[in-house]
């Protein structure tokens, strides 16, 4: 039986190491963003909205417009940071997924390598470009409404799209995913305890995330939407009747509603994303060159962190900074466990290269 290649600079090695690195950087960025930017930004959005409401109360239209421009700028700052975080992690997931599917692709190894480089270049370029959109703006741009940062971000997206389509074309050519005769893939044969914990734990998290999502849709979604409307309508009536305290009351209720929505959606999204990550990592345990006990420990730490973060995010409204801090620790546990597995895979590549006489 011939083993599926994990040689130096092979497509699979590039996608595995590059994919996990993208997820690590994306998560680290997300943790830093959550601690230093997210809450401060939300407070400023709330303050600008309050300024707009009070300006409307005074009949000051120009101040209303200025405040809404501030809200727009703050939301752009927040939106581009969230997009950077999400795209980097999702491209990492996609890289890992492609790495597993590679043996079924009917492309030559050289083509796969070129596609892997193209994918990783685009996967770095898009989030980098998106991050810079808020700072670069339209400076030196040849276009009226799209800046250089957006242009490079779009170019990155295009590269990822071309590379992914290339890989899919290879899968399409392999006649309905037939297994390659005479080959075996260590990733699919692995039945280690750490792999099993990650696969079952990951799927249980996805399952819990779906149950929570269904509960949210059934109990909170329509209530939130109707509250969103009624609070803003109350604010309009209070402004028309020059009732400043009622405007303040509506603003406070609106802030609480947005907070409630944000934590519930964040908890739902994070537990499913972490579950998917655990399931993907389950397949790569064969490449993690650590002792079995340590592989098991890192798997448990990843699962614990993955559950801690969304659960504590859900409790943030009731327990404030304590829950927020615990959620950040949960995120940190996931990052540490992922880093440990990444180092384990690096060790495996070293051992493999030494065996093949490629060690320098």
């Amino acid at each position, binding site marked *: 039986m011939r083993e599926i290649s994990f040689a130096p600079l092979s497509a699979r090695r590039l996608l595995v190491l590059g994919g996990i690195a993208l997820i690590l950087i994306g998560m680290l960025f997300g943790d830093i963003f959550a601690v230093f930017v997210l809450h401060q930004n939300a407070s400023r959005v709330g303050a600008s909205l309050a300024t707009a409401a009070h300006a409307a109360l005074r009949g000051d239209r120009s101040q209303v417009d200025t405040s*809404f421009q501030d809200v727009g700028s703050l939301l752009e700052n927040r939106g581009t940071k969230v997009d950077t975080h999400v795209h980097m992690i999702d491209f990492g997931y996609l890289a890992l997924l492609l790495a597993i*599917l590679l043996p079924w692709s009917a492309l030559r190894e050289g083509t796969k390598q070129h596609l892997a480089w193209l994918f990783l270049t685009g996967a770095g370029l898009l989030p980098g470009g998106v991050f810079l959109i808020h700072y670069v703006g339209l400076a030196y741009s040849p276009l009226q409404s799209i800046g250089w940062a957006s242009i490079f971000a779009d170019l990155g997206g295009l590269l990822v799209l071309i590379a992914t389509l290339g890989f899919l074309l290879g899968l399409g050519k392999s006649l309905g995913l037939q297994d390659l005769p005479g080959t075996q893939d260590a990733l699919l044969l692995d039945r280690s305890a750490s792999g099993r914990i990650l696969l*079952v734990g990951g*799927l249980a998290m996805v399952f819990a995330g779906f149950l929570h*999502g269904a509960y949210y849709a059934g109990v909170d979604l329509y209530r939130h*939407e109707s509250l969103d409307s009624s609070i803003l309508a109350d604010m309009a009536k209070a402004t*028309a009747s020059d009732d400043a305290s009622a405007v303040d009351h509506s603003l406070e209720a609106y802030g609480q509603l947005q907070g409630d929505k944000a934590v519930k959606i964040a908890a739902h999204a994070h537990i499913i994303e972490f579950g998917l990550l655990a399931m993907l990592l389950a397949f790569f345990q064969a490449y993690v060159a650590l002792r079995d006990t340590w592989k098991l420990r890192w798997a448990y730490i990843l699962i614990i962190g993955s559950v801690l973060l969304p659960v504590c995010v859900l409790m943030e409204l009731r327990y404030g900074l304590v829950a927020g801090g615990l959620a950040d620790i949960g995120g940190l546990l996931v990052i540490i466990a992922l880093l440990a597995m990444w180092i384990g895979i690096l060790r495996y590549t070293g051992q493999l290269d030494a065996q093949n006489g490629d060690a320098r």
Partner: protein
Amino acid sequence: MSGSRRLLILGGIALALWGMGYGLWYAVFAEHQALNAIGASLAATFDAEAERNLAAADTAFRHYGEAKYIYDRQVDVHGHWIGLAMLLIVLGIGFDRVAFAERRKLALAWALLAGAVIFPFGVLLETFDHGPFPRAIAILGSALVIVALGGITLGLALPASSRR
């Protein structure tokens, strides 16, 4: 490769391509207009309030509510189709570890694929019709996904020797 694995992987890839294509169409032809409508109608509400024009504020506010209702669902549809597609592919890769007989695995795979298609489709229909029918489709789709995921989780948690 077994039929259930192939169904999940190929179905997942097809759904991912569909979800990405839908997202691309929405981003190019509809998203900017939707965001402009949300921002402009909210600003118009406050402007009308500043002028003490309650009727105009009410109209602008209704536009804001409708635009936001549609935008939230469009983003959800795109995100859920792609997210579910990734889940289908990952599950497909590891589906031989589910400790059930192939026939039962095929039923679970069909239920999951059907739910993954129907659930976001129901949410999409809500943007055209606010009545109970689209909501019922979305609920049916999500119920299929939840039941199938529960079954697969059980099948993965059971030891391989209990295959039946």
